């Protein structure tokens, strides 16, 4: 349960604080993902929460391993770079795809409504012509 590396007090405080802070921010972003109403609102919170949560947890990781191995260990910067770069790109691609799908759905609906209206108008005209023909045949 409480297995953890042996660090000096200052490093312990930094690592513990940053880990809990980052995890809480990530949780906050994901709660936003679960609770907000429309898709375009839901795109933002995970991006913001995950980016800052990543930064915090990776700072904790860098501190922990630098103190453990008593030399600067900065390979976590690679992960930081990847995640900070890729999360917004993914969400932007997704938002554009969603926008495209919504637009094409609205377009399809408009086309369907117009076709329905045109069919209705044709049926009305046909009925009027038939009525006229019936009146003419009655007069004769």
């Amino acid at each position, binding site marked *: 349960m409480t297995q*953890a590396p042996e660090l000096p007090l200052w490093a312990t405080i930094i*690592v513990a604080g940053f880990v809990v802070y980052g995890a809480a921010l990530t949780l906050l972003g994901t709660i936003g993902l679960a609770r907000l109403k429309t898709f375009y609102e839901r795109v933002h919170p995970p991006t913001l929460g995950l980016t800052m949560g990543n930064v915090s947890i990776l700072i904790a990781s860098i501190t922990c391993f630098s103190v453990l191995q008593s030399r600067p260990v900065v390979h976590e910067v690679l992960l930081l770079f990847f995640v900070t770069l890729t999360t917004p790109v993914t969400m932007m691609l997704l938002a554009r795809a969603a926008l495209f799908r919504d637009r094409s759905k609205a377009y399809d609906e408009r086309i369907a409504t117009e076709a329905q209206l045109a069919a209705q108008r044709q049926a009305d005209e046909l009925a009027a012509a038939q009525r006229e023909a019936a009146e003419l045949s009655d007069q004769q």
Partner: protein
Amino acid sequence: MNVLILGWALTVAQTLLGLAMLFSTFRLLRGPRAQDRVGALDSLYANAMLLMVVFGIRAGTPLFFEAALIIAIVGFASSSALAKFLMRGEVIE
């Protein structure tokens, strides 16, 4: 004492990240349309990566860093491929 503090902080962080994964799983199962599910999957991937990093801190070896890196890259590739699929109807044109 220090080990105790760090151990409890890591436990709390793992619990919070697990809760975050639970929330994104909820959105993944519930999401009204496909784009909601893809976004939830992306967030699930990122949470799993962070959980891996926290577990690496607990174990005290930089071994789990590679696993986290692979999860991050595969997550990005899969999410962007799925977004492309939603947009065009096929992945490679």
